[in-house]
């Protein structure tokens, strides 16, 4: 009887909590979970280019704020020490073999990083949903979930709409369909592992599928994470590329 009472009261508590919440508050909670002012990730990216064509890349990702990031590739040998530096709307790729730097801007930022299903923007941007999107609830969520449709309220966002399934236990988007202005679903992202670090639920594994490509899939797994890191002053400067 006690168990039943507890169960009912728990369900009611969650129900009352979600019923009262507004879409903007949900976005705010998600942003609070996902946004890290500065961090260092060790990550592994498994890219399935097609049947039987799989490549795994290991990398270290440094982030600061919403649109500053630096990625250093550790493997495979072909891409070892290749770096990606994102600052604002520009991204530089550093090729260690010839110590050249290539600037990428505009639509090229939406191309797949190293041919993966994650674009350069996906990998290096962590802008807040609340700032970029207005939101509305969608009907028929499963238990412990909320379904939302996010529509861009500012120009220049990467994806005009996002159809998000929110895990209300961790307040993270467990599944996201990324939609173009024409209504076409461009990508599908599934987040299937989270870990609590310093009171925040951090996504540890995300599977991204670019639906415009055939038979591709990229699984991004974060193997370790350090938050609240203080990066050296010039760490995100272009001149620092190639120096570790």
């Amino acid at each position, binding site marked *: 009887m006690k168990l039943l009472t507890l169960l009912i009261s728990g369900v009611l508590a969650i129900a009352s909590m979600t019923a009262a919440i507004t879409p903007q508050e949900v976005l705010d909670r998600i942003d609070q979970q996902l946004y890290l002012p500065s961090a260092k990730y060790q990550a592994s990216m498994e*890219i399935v280019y097609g049947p039987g064509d799989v490549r795994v890349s290991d990398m270290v990702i440094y982030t600061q704020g919403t649109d500053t990031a630096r990625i250093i590739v550790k493997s495979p040998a072909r891409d070892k020490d290749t770096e990606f530096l994102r600052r604002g709307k520009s991204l530089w790729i550093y090729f260690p073999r*010839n110590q050249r730097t290539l600037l990428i801007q505009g639509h090229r930022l939406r191309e797949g990083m190293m041919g993966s299903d994650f674009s350069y923007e996906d990998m290096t941007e962590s802008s807040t949903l609340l700032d970029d999107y207005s939101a509305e609830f969608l009907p028929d969520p499963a238990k412990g979930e909320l379904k939302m449709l996010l529509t861009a309220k500012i120009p220049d966002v990467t994806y005009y709409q996002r159809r998000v399934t929110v895990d209300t236990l961790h307040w993270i988007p467990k599944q996201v369909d990324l939609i173009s202005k024409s209504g076409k679903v461009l990508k599908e992202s599934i987040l299937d592992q989270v870990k609590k670090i310093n009171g925040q639920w951090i996504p540890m594994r995300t599977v991204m599928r670019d639906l415009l490509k055939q038979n591709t899939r990229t699984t991004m797994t974060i193997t370790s994470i350090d938050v609240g890191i203080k990066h050296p002053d010039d760490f995100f400067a272009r001149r620092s590329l190639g120096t570790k």
Partner: protein
Amino acid sequence: MFSLWQIATRNIGRNRRRTLLTASAVAFAVAILVFIMSYFRGITADVFDTVVQLQTGHCRITAPGLLEREILHPLTPSIPNVTMLCDSLETLPEIVVATPRINFWGFIETGDISRVEPNSGIAVDFTREDAILRPKEMLIQGRIPEPDSLEIFLGERLRQELKVNIGDTLWIWTSTSRRGLYALDLVVSGTFRTGINPVDERTFIIPMETAWELLDMDGSATEVLLMTDDLWNAEILRPIVQTRFSTWHNITLTVTPWTDQGGIVQALRQVSSFIIIIIVIFMIIAASTITNTMLMAVLERNKEIGMMKALGVHNRSIVFLVVAEAIIIGLLGGAAGGVLGTGVSMWTEAVGIQLGDAMADIDMPIGEALFPDFRWSYLAIGWILGIFFSGLAALYPAWKASRFPAAVTMRAT
């Protein structure tokens, strides 16, 4: 019959100015015809040679689905283990050479110049290209890149635009077969000239092994070009290759002879139809001149013809007489025109027709100079057509002459 030929021959000299005018029309048409045929064969040979050299070979092997998108220079689907495939193909007696190729886009950057538009890159196995690309013939300065070297062979006009010299380093970045970005520093080993400005301005060539690294395509190529003994016999390769190599590493290979390959061949077929129309127009103009002058001739001779009819000459003999006269004029005019057309064709074949920069902005594989390709058969064809159209053009005047009523014309006398 013999006497009618004699009369026809004699008639030619009766009004020499008119005969000369008529024969000149035939001569002009035949000369144009001979020259156009030579000129068109020259263009066709030039275009075919370039298309075969740069694009199609006599036959091309690709993975399924690549040809439909080839304008985009896709890197997938590709043919794996391509060196072994080429070696195996060259064991077939019908195949003289099999060579791998990759066509791709690459952005070239130098210290000062960064090109916004991508350039067209071709990756080749230089050791197999003597019979197809013929790099030694294209070489202008420097040398051909060594296999497996970080060297690049630049179109001469592209080198000038980039302001680089032999031995300079430039870097190329491109999208790889897995859609990542990759860049390499390459040393300019030499420059080439095809004479086709769009190619010389936009194209660079690199060794296959270098492309494998740049494009992340280890051991693969997007196509294999085949050469056989005879360009016009390329069709036979398709069944032979498809029987022997129905699949390669689980890929069903697509074998396409040059005759089935897209735009240029199709365009040339359309141009050949256009050439035939031009030839027919010239022959009609010449024929109308003949009709006109022969009509004048028979009208002038109506009394004479009436007399002949009164003496019992049949209508068909009158027709024969007039047509025979026209045929003799066609024979003489055609011979003169044939000699003229042959002379002009042979002379321009020797010196070339310089187009200069006129072709610079035209995206056709035609060089800066065109060389007509004269064949003696063109002289024969031109002459025979000249005679035929002359005879044909005289039918109406001949029919008209045969209809003159003998009594009326006699009375008028």
